[in-house]
């Protein structure tokens, strides 16, 4: 079987400027942020990003000036950021194009892409102003006469995602919620998966019910422990509320965000140095989950 293991730098170098991209995870969970920081270091520009419910993953790329256009449903991060701050600032200053869909519509669009279909019908989007501004088409069902909305498939050049376990050949296991990772991956031409842990084929093949993305759909595997920090990874580490607050504060202005990038992306220059910059092993130990729960019940989350 093929060995698809690459370093972060090698994997990020697969992504040229100007391409379309989707990113796995959901709000504060399981985004491939180590890969995203490496894209920023490599000065990738003019990306078109398709997303459903993104958090500071997409906001990081926006703030670093990597994004030309966005199509998606939601960019925020709960109490850390009721609106993703770079997204808001770039939108209000017309530095990024945005087309709005609902989460179910984006789910249907990625699913159509994964299914090899040009569209899927949905009962969402009807009665919204998103209908007219997006590529959604209204339809009367030829069977029932009911009103439906047809949303066009999303196919992206790349999907970047982060999972708990992968084999060198690219078989992926996800623990906890899947979010939309499977459909996003299968809707992409090239899939780059970072993982907490590289495991033997034999290990994952013992429980085939628990594997989510087959190797033939995956092109590169990048082992990166803590590769989703400051986001959480179920059963591995919790999100880092201090860093998410720090991110959100920094993302309020161009100047502050440039300083953030210098401190946490360009300055450190590598993932290991990034982990040192965010507090090193001492801080990471505080994010360690309870084995039965998958998160750290003792984590201090309020400021």
């Amino acid at each position, binding site marked *: 079987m093929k060995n698809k293991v690459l370093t972060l730098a090698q994997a990020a170098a697969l992504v040229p400027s100007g391409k379309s991209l989707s990113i796995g995870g*959901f709000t504060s969970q399981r985004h491939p942020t180590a890969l995203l920081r490496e894209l920023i270091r490599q000065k990738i520009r003019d990306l078109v990003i398709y997303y459903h419910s993104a958090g500071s993953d997409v906001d990081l790329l926006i703030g670093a000036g990597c994004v030309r256009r966005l199509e998606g*449903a*939601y960019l925020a991060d709960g109490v850390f950021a009721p609106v993703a701050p770079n997204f808001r600032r770039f939108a209000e200053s017309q530095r990024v194009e945005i087309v709005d869909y609902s989460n179910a519509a984006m789910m249907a669009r990625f699913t159509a892409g994964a299914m090899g279909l040009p569209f899927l019908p949905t009962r969402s989007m009807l009665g919204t102003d998103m209908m007219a501004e997006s590529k959604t088409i209204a339809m009367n069902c030829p069977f029932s006469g009911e009103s439906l909305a047809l949303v066009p498939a999303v196919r992206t050049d790349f999907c970047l995602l982060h999972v708990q376990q992968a084999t060198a050949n690219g078989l992926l296991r996800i623990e906890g919620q899947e979010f939309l990772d499977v459909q996003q991956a299968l809707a992409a031409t090239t899939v780059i998966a970072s993982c907490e842990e590289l495991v033997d084929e034999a290990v994952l093949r013992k429980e085939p019910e628990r594997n989510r993305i087959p190797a033939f759909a995956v092109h590169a595997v990048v082992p990166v422990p803590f590769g989703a920090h400051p986001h959480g990874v179920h059963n591995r580490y919790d999100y880092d509320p201090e860093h998410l607050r720090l991110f959100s504060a920094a993302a309020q202005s161009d100047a502050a965000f440039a300083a953030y990038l210098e401190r946490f992306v360009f300055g450190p220059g590598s993932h290991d140095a990034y982990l040192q910059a965010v507090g090193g092993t001492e801080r990471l130990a505080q994010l360690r989950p309870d084995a039965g729960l998958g998160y750290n019940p003792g984590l201090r989350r309020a400021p």
Partner: protein
Amino acid sequence: MKKAVCSTTELMAVTAAHEIRDAEVVFAGTGLPMLATMLAQRTHAPDCVIVFEAGAVDPRMLHLPMSVGDSRTLAGAAQAAGLFEIFNYVLQGGRVDVGFLGSAQIDRYGNLNSTRIGPSRQRPEVRLPGSGGSADVAALARRTIVIARHERRRFPERVDFRTSPGWIDGGETRQAAGIRGGGPAAVVTTMGVIRYREGTREPYLASYHPGLSAQQVQDETGFALDLSDAQETPPPGNEELAILRREIDPERIFLK
């Protein structure tokens, strides 16, 4: 009913919790909806089934999640699925009894805006996060409960952008738009609770929070409210408040 001194957030959480009936399937978003559903499950609706769009089905949460994707939504869950299953099989499949929605703007007929403020698409005055699952829940849940901060600028006659359909233009206009789900049942605000008349879908003030008057609520609302049925919002019970404060949000993440 034992009366208790409480904050507006606490009152809203308890008031919203009362909208949930036992064994209902509840689609919950981040923030107050989580407080409300966790409270309902610990009090009058122990068998309510909570679903989160990120993938958790029917959890027995022990710790307050900070977002719907939080691992804390999985504690004791029946299923860890994903957006595909929740939006298709649960929501669009017609299995959600009550959905909770927040909004930056809400208009006369309960339409919501969480996309942008201002008349221009190209130059938004304020860019908001976008629909997320709001438009979907608004269209497909059997009924929806909206949670909103009550300020006149947030309650215009008509939203700047209709992200999530409420009763559209009132009367039969929602059905005419081809929307299947039930529409907004209540808007729980920082000042009171708004509901809608059968048939006309005109809004009326069902209750104003303790310390306020019906007229004060009207003054902070950009459209006319029928005040004729307005009563004072029942205060939370002591036990409800104790559960909220001690068990559900001891860190004061959402509770103010």
